[in-house]
């Protein structure tokens, strides 16, 4: 069965320290992978995406993610957290099969401590 798991529902980091948000998927098909961010009372904004090109993907606002097929992971990182990064982050996976559905994880709430 196809699934996506965000391992942490909440992550807290201090401003200026690195951010790591974890995402794993399960599928026998080649995936496209995405990270979205949602600020309070706002819509979903695409941070970055992997669609079978370079495995290290750079996105907006200093975020990047690395696709690791052997680990079925697509973790999101940022070297130095900023207060404005406080938001909810969603990992999404799209599988290249006849169904072609896009599945989202349950989200990770990122808290930035001053």
């Amino acid at each position: 069965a196809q699934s996506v798991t965000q391992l942490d529902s909440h992550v807290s980091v201090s401003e200026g320290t690195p951010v790591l948000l974890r995402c794993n998927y399960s599928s026998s098909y080649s995936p496209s992978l995405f990270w979205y961010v949602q600020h309070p009372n706002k819509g979903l904004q695409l941070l970055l995406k992997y669609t079978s090109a370079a495995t290290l993907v750079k996105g907006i606002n200093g975020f990047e993610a690395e696709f690791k097929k052997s680990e079925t992971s697509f973790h999101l990182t940022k070297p130095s957290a900023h207060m404005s990064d406080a938001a909810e982050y969603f990992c999404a996976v799209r599988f290249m099969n006849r169904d072609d559905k896009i599945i989202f994880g349950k989200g990770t709430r990122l808290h930035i401590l001053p």
Partner: protein
Amino acid sequence: SQTIHQWPATLVQPVGSPLSLECTVEGTSNPNLYWYRQAAGRGLQLLFYSVGIGQISSEVPQNLSASRPQDRQFILSSKKLLLSDSGFYLCAWSVWPSEAFFGQGTRLTVV
């Protein structure tokens, strides 16, 4: 450029009443269309998706149904709403292998 329209933005409906939420896409042909429900702590739950006119796949057995009468129109319906149908509903479109593009959402409150 492509745009997606979803309406209404908010809706308050009594239990047992019918529901119809509509979503239309402009600027693209034969998109995949999706209905999601967002609830706190549960992320975006995929409810229905469609890869073409009249082709609907249901992900979660429930009180809702979906239809795609035209290439760029996707409708979410219910004959009788339940309290548990309250939530934030999002329509999205996509073409392989790109990301999903979302409408502004509908906040449904069933009272």
